[in-house]
């Protein structure tokens, strides 16, 4: 299992459209279980409802963990996606 921490920078947080894109990205890494955790709870990043339910806003710190499959690659891709959220 690998993990990394990052912060949501997009002023509008993680809303529906980028959440959908993130789900698609996560699903493209077959065999990897990707989770996103805040200080409150941890959710399955392949579930759009779970992601949206975190209510991620600008400035929230999240921890990404990846288990199985191409772990390092998946972690880097998810982190880059979150770091580059623009709107």
């Amino acid at each position, binding site marked *: 299992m690998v993990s990394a921490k990052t912060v949501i920078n997009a002023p509008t*947080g993680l*809303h529906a459209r980028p959440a959908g894109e993130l789900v698609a990205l996560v699903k493209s890494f077959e065999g990897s279980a990707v989770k996103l955790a805040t200080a409150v709870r941890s959710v399955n990043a392949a579930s759009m409802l779970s992601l949206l339910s975190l*209510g991620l806003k600008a400035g929230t710190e999240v921890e990404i963990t990846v288990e199985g499959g191409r772990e390092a690659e998946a972690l880097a891709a998810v982190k880059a996606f979150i770091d580059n959220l623009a709107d």
Partner: protein
Amino acid sequence: MVVRGPAYLWNCHPEACPELAEGRERRISFSEAYDQVRRELAAAAVPEPKAAEVFAAHLEILEDPMLKEAVEAELEAGKPELEALDAACSGICAMFSEIDDEYLRARVDDVRDVFGRLRNAMLGISRRHEVPAGSVIVAEELLPSDTAEIDFSSIAGILCRRGSSTSHVCIIAHSKGVPIQLGVDISGISDGDLVSVDDPMVGPSSIESKVRAAGRKLYVNAGSVDDIRAAIAAGADGIGLFRTEFLFLGRSAMPTREEQKALYKEALEACAGKPLTVRLLDVGGDKALPYLPMPREDNPFLGLRGVRFLLAHTELLEAQLGAIADAASAVPGSQVRVMIPMVCTVEEIRRVREMLNQPLELGIMVETPAAVLDAASLAAECDFFSIGTNDLTQYVMAADRGNSAVAGLYDPMSPAVRRAVELAVSAAHASGIPVGICGELASDPRATDFLLSAGLDSLSLSRL
């Protein structure tokens, strides 16, 4: 605008109208209903792109692991099927309702809609609506799948007791010019009663009709090819801002010229011969690309962004300009306009034009104080102006729009920003080039009179 018409009571959802479901027996199990609804949603053929998006989003919610897990957890806890479904629905909705974001809270509608559909399937309820032309639809609430069933071209208006201005029904009604009034006490209205709908967002006082009456062009901002299709279908004169960032973000390598060409070609086809204003990639230190790492900047809004970034990465600029030119020559009769972001100097326009090396229309976003103050020189070098009031306000007022401590200063209608708009318009007209606006101010009905009197040739709205 106020319209009147006979009421048509629309109450199909047990979620909106519990008495419909009362006393009915369950016909099929949750898992049978799940498969049935999945087939229905996947097969839903809807001509309207926005309604098709609704069904695609609902299919995604249905297939979301969280939904099934939540229902199964309730079933395992020993609840009867319908109760388990309702408990799972309330659980998920409660989680969303706590979120401090109006847009996300409105998505609760989609979740309830999907659960309502499952519930109807389990109860064997299906009801088709036949709404007489000219009716006013009266409903407790219209959920997204109801909205997809409504023929907006034949109704006079809509009255709802519940719903928000960001709900599907409201967005689509406005995009079709149909008045809708929310928060109305509908008790006591019967089928056929003459009712009236009062909606200031629709009618002669709306932005759209004012722009049309003044003989100016009505454009729409787009972030995807679907947005373009929806805008053209809704009657837009063209696309005033096509954002291209989505092509570059969320991927591990730069998109090739070929990949970009395919997308621009699709966009031009969707535009059906109307002007498509393609904004060149607009990124900077605050939104960097994974494959082009940028040094950290203390002040990214005054740093390497917009055209400055493009001119520092000419391989990227060359590929994008080449792809746009390729797409334009591949679609006969298309009208492409290339727009440069964050321009401050004449030199920046010259360098981009040199690299474009094609007789395409080339214009600039006017969004820096420098572009306003030297607008006359810039206008002499390009084919159009488009005023980006979001950044322009931020730079003119020296106020970060995200900083609540100075939010009062971030006002696009403040005298200084209005003066900047007027200066840009007069410089453009003195050079004989058209000038439009593509910032959020264009979509603010309180600004329309000012923008038209300032002489803007086009307003590009966030949607029609």
